């Protein structure tokens, strides 16, 4: 199959030429279908931003403020910060850039069947493990099997479940006499080794977003000999080698020789843990103790812009802070209560007091307006009278007393919560805020009946919906379970045609607004800040840092 082989690519081209879709949508979709980014950008007639910059300075040290958590099991990561360290030593199969365009990583190209069920991945041939040996199809299959093994506990499982995994009954019975179920690959041949450098994914359902899934942050390619564990000296294909790790303090990486890809330009990268608190991060950056901050709360932006040496990079994202209820717990199991919680909110007002220019108005359905599969719905309006009425109908004429939990950091989360709480007062929903220590909340965020958490950016709406609201998903914190929703979601995931997919997405979004378990007032912008001396810097919407692209001026 040639790169032009997917039948929908010509359709996309004509759509672009006719002006039915914009360049962004063309780029996004055509690359996913296997068109190379270079070709796609050339056709779209815009310069390819990912082209390597000339004359990058060499050497030096790059210090980035970021939490340094335990790195033991990269496939089980649930924080992008941890993956950002492993990312420097262990590559991914694909790379989704800051422009949301997915490019080849360890696989140099991919092809997909017209039904979107068969994906052929061509592994790059010149990639060597640091300790020796080629990176091969076997390595890919081992890694994918590892992340898809329920025992691993990777969130990749949730992402790929719909097209790679089935549940099977076992001989064992549980307490109630029902057979215990196990999840495993839906078919023995689901991960097929074609040759030493070719892997084929045979999916049970159509899926467009496979290349993006492969870049999901826990899916770094580990050496099978390391058995899924990561530590000092673990093998990798990446541009750096981990030479020092003090959890809670710092991680030091040294550039390796003979990296297959771009860079690295700097000699060492240091990730420095300054805690969750934004204060020290700002202070450290202001006094040039660090060259960049991986994740800055929007609060800090005005202060940072004030610093002469700071270059603040921003990205419009589909990341958002979401207040969600446990769909199955009273009083939230009453649809009218959930609706009242949404109707009480004036999203614009919330934006104004919390995020200001650091975000945009949300529509309570968690499908980002910047994403290719976003469907525009009629504006969702605040309606206090209706909210009160719904509450009364639901049996709460005197309002409700609730407690919402959230974490302390990033600081915009408690701020958003406080802004929401202030508005809920108007409809008689009295909410107490329980701000929990961040680490503590991260451990129990799915357990609180009414909670608030930030969801990271994902490049497709269906990815987020699939992770967060599909029945039975491990990250389905709201315990949302709606067969119609699940069905439509699967349908969307298998629809290549953008228009058709948007139509399905519109239905999904409407279900979220009507029945959904969330109140999502705003979208975040994502910021990263680097010292002006850091060249090649940019903000990645998923808070990723790829240090091989950065250089430091002396």
């Amino acid at each position, binding site marked *: 199959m040639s790169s032009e082989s997917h039948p929908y690519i010509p359709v996309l081209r004509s759509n672009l030429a006719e002006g039915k879709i914009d360049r962004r949508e063309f780029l996004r979709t055509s690359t996913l279908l296997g068109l190379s980014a270079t070709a796609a950008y050339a056709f779209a007639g815009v310069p390819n931003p990912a082209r390597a910059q000339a004359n990058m300075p060499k050497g030096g040290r790059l210090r980035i403020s970021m939490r340094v958590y335990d790195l033991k099991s990269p496939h089980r990561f649930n924080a992008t910060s941890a993956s950002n360290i492993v990312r420097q030593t262990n590559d991914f199969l694909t790379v989704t850039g800051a422009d949301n365009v997915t490019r080849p990583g360890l696989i140099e190209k991919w092809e997909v069947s017209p039904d979107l069920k068969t994906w052929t991945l061509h592994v790059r041939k010149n990639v060597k493990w640091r300790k020796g040996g080629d990176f091969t199809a076997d390595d890919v299959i081992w890694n994918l099997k590892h992340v898809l093994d329920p025992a691993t506990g990777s969130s990749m499982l949730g992402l790929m479940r719909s097209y790679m995994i089935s549940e099977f009954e076992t001989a064992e019975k549980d307490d109630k006499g029902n057979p215990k179920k196990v999840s495993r690959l839906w078919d023995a041949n689901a991960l097929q080794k074609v040759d030493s450098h070719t892997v084929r994914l045979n999916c049970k359902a159509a899926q467009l977003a496979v290349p993006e899934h492969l870049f999901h942050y826990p899916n770094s390619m580990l050496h099978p000999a390391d058995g899924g564990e990561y530590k000092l000296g673990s093998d990798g294909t990446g541009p750096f080698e981990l030479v020092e790790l003090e959890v809670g303090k710092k991680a030091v990486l040294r550039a390796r020789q003979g990296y297959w890809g771009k860079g690295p330009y700097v000699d060492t990268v240091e990730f420095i843990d300054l805690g969750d608190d934004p204060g020290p991060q700002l202070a450290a950056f202001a006094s040039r103790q660090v060259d960049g901050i991986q994740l800055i709360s929007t609060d800090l932006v005005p202060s940072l812009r004030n610093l002469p040496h700071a270059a603040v990079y921003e990205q419009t994202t589909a990341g958002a802070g979401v207040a969600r209820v446990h769909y199955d717990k009273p009083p939230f199991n009453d649809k009218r209560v959930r609706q009242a919680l949404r109707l009480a909110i004036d999203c614009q007002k919330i934006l104004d007091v919390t995020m200001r220019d650091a975000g945009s108005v949300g529509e309570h359905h968690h499908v980002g307006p910047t994403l290719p599969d976003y469907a525009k719905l009629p504006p969702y309006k605040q309606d206090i009278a209706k909210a009160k009425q719904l509450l009364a109908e639901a049996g709460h004429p005197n309002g409700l007393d609730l407690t919402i939990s959230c974490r302390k950091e990033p*600081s915009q989360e408690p701020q958003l919560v406080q*802004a929401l709480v202030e508005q809920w007062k108007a409809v008689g929903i009295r909410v107490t805020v329980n701000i929990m220590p961040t680490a503590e909340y991260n451990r129990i965020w799915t357990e609180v009946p009414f909670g608030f958490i930030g969801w990271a950016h994902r490049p497709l709406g269906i990815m987020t919906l699939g992770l967060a609201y599909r029945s039975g998903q491990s990250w389905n914190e709201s315990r949302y379970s709606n067969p119609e929703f699940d069905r439509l979601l699967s349908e969307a995931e298998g629809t290549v045609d953008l228009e058709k997919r948007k139509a399905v997405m519109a239905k999904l979004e409407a279900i979220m607004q009507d029945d959904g378990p969330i109140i999502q007032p705003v979208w975040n912008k994502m910021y990263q800040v680097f010292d002006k001396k850091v060249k090649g810097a940019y903000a990645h919407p998923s808070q990723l840092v790829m240090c091989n692209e950065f250089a430091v001026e002396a």
Partner: protein
Amino acid sequence: MTTGIDAPERSALGGEESRVAGFISGVGRLRESPIAMIGLAIVLFWVLVAIFAPLLAPMSPTATIRPMALPGTRGPGGQLFLLGADHLGRDVLSRIIYGARTVLIYAPIATACAYVVGVVAGLLAGYRQGWVDDLLARIGDLILAFPALVLYIVIIAKFGSSGLNIILAVTLASGPGVMRIVRGMVLDIRNRAFVAAAQVRGESAWHIMFAEILPNATGPLIVDACLRLGYVTIAIGTLGFLGLGLPPPNPDWGGMISETRQFAMIFPHMVVFPCLAVSSLVLGLNFLADGLTDIVKRA
């Protein structure tokens, strides 16, 4: 001092005295110390602010109006932000005014609880002596072996952050200190002849502890209470600062500082004013304690 028989009378014959009069004369003696008067003025200022918060605060402390408004600027509705607005557009002045309530409710209640526990335990330990003393002293030593802030965060971490738990933590952490002071004074006072006189006329132990000994220990205890109230104010603020304080949006000075300190660089008003508020209250209490110490020493 004139102590002659012919000195003018204070009250009518046979008066079995009023405790109130004694108290008033005690307060009157504050005038002897200018530093105590300044302290009292500062503390009273905050007490009045707390009591009349709804009347004094120009806006709701939780209303989000105009983020980052600078001091002296106006909001969209023409509201004047005298001390500016915080990052969520809430009036800093109103939050400080309501924050005084939080501080002046929790700190005194917590201190009072510590005192109830400490005074009773101290009286028992000092008066009963023997195994009661040993036991209470050991328990006190044990609690005091934990650094206070560690004790606070362990308790708050274990039982969660709420007003009640903060009071509990303060009581537990400060009680033994109060007990030690009371015990020390009881050991001194119990050897005075008037205690023996009460014993030989068959007064009960409770009468002796509370009616004979305790009133004589009030001077140093009031001084200590002022200082301790200052510490507790700082402790509650510190908990707020560490993110273990009272849940927002109840304004709480420590929490305000914690929430807004990252803006100190360009919007110092958000953080400097609450810092000044908490420092001034503590300063007032320290002044008061200082002045009272002088007065108690002179007495």
